[in-house]
């Protein structure tokens, strides 16, 4: 089984964000998406999430239950880490489970402070735990590990791998080393039309 993106095209006004792009993602596996800044990675994820409609093309085989780490954290600023995670959890997920998950990646000290008072890397981890604990078959991650130092990143990566076993995972990253370390399929997105000629290097 696989998720198929076929001849998809999306423009915002004049701007062509994705120009006739196709790809296939294996269900139950992890795929890294790479490409230059502005090539449409985030837009591709939003299309697959069903948040925006493509102008042309189809997406086939998307599971119902989705979760995501967005490029920005998108947390409820005045609520605590625990509350932010609970927001997306099924009722059967206990408070202990949430606290356990947060503690596992080093947030045990700041469980109940409003997330606006957390450091950048801490907020990122809250967003990651939220994506993991939400009931889902596919997890979208848009540069999930940015802002984490090397040691922490290792820890978080293994936390994510452990908790997404069997799920489809799409990870956008700019770090080739990271992509190779994950040992997964890599999808390279080309810079899109008008930007192509001006693509750096």
């Amino acid at each position, binding site marked *: 089984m696989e998720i198929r993106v076929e001849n998809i095209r999306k423009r915002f006004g004049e701007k062509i964000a994705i120009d006739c792009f196709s790809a296939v993602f294996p269900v139950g596996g992890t795929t890294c998406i790479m490409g230059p800044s502005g090539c449409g990675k985030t837009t591709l994820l*939003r299309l697959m*999430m069903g*948040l925006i409609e493509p102008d042309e093309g189809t997406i086939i085989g998307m599971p119902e*239950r*989705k*979760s*995501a780490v*967005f490029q*920005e954290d*998108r947390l*409820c600023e*005045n*609520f*605590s880490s625990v*509350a932010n995670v*609970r*927001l*997306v959890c099924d009722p059967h997920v206990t408070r202990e489970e949430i606290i356990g998950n947060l503690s596992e990646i080093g947030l045990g000290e700041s469980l109940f402070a*409003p997330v606006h008072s957390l450091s950048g890397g801490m907020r990122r981890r809250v967003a990651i735990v*939220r994506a993991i604990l*939400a009931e889902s078959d596919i997890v979208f991650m848009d540069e999930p590990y940015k802002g984490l130092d090397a040691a922490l990143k290792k820890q978080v990566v293994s936390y994510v791998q452990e908790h997404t076993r069997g799920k489809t995972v799409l990870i956008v990253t700019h770090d080739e080393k990271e992509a190779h370390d994950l040992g997964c399929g890599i999808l390279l997105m080309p810079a899109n039309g008008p930007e192509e000629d001006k693509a750096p290097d």
Partner: protein
Amino acid sequence: MAALALGRSLLLVSPLDVVIRLARLSSTGSFWASVAFSFFRICLGFLAALSAGMVLAFLAARVKTIEIMLWPYMAAVKATPVASFIILCLIWIGSGGLSVFISFLMVLPIIYTNVLQGLHSFDPKMEEMATLFGVTPLRRLYYFHIPQIRPFLLSACGVAIGLSWKAGIAAEVIGIPSGSIGERLYEAKIYFSSADLFAWTAVVVLLSIGFEKMFVALMKRSFDQMEKI
């Protein structure tokens, strides 16, 4: 200048006179009865409008058709001069209930418009997040909408409480229900008793300030409380 002097001579009372009058008034039982009469009715009108305004705003934010349908009503409620429907009000609800109704009508569009504006200015990125995770409406309310409308609701209440008193007392001065503050103001006016007029005006302003301070503080606390889960 002449007008100013005229105004001053008309007052004919010093602030001290007003304070003394106020002290004397407040030692009578009927003073407190009048205060209770008007306070109860005006606050009832305010609270009813607060609830109704919020409910309508939430409905309108969810269903665009409702917003469009409500628009002419709200515009009419806002702009229709009281003089145009006072007779109908008196027929339907009598002078006793008039202040409840008029204060309700004054507050409703303020709450509705502000809360709706608050809901409309919700960050689309958070909206996307909620959609993706399939956040339930109840949780949306709790996590997004209530924090979102907070500043709008606070400013709406800040202004609506004062105006509900203004409008409610005006309704009492028109309907003159026995035992209301409006009746006292009416009497003070027709007997040219400036000390009474100012004393009762001070009472109205103080009641309004007191209620506003209390209510807004309570609201802030419950907002804060809600975020501490």
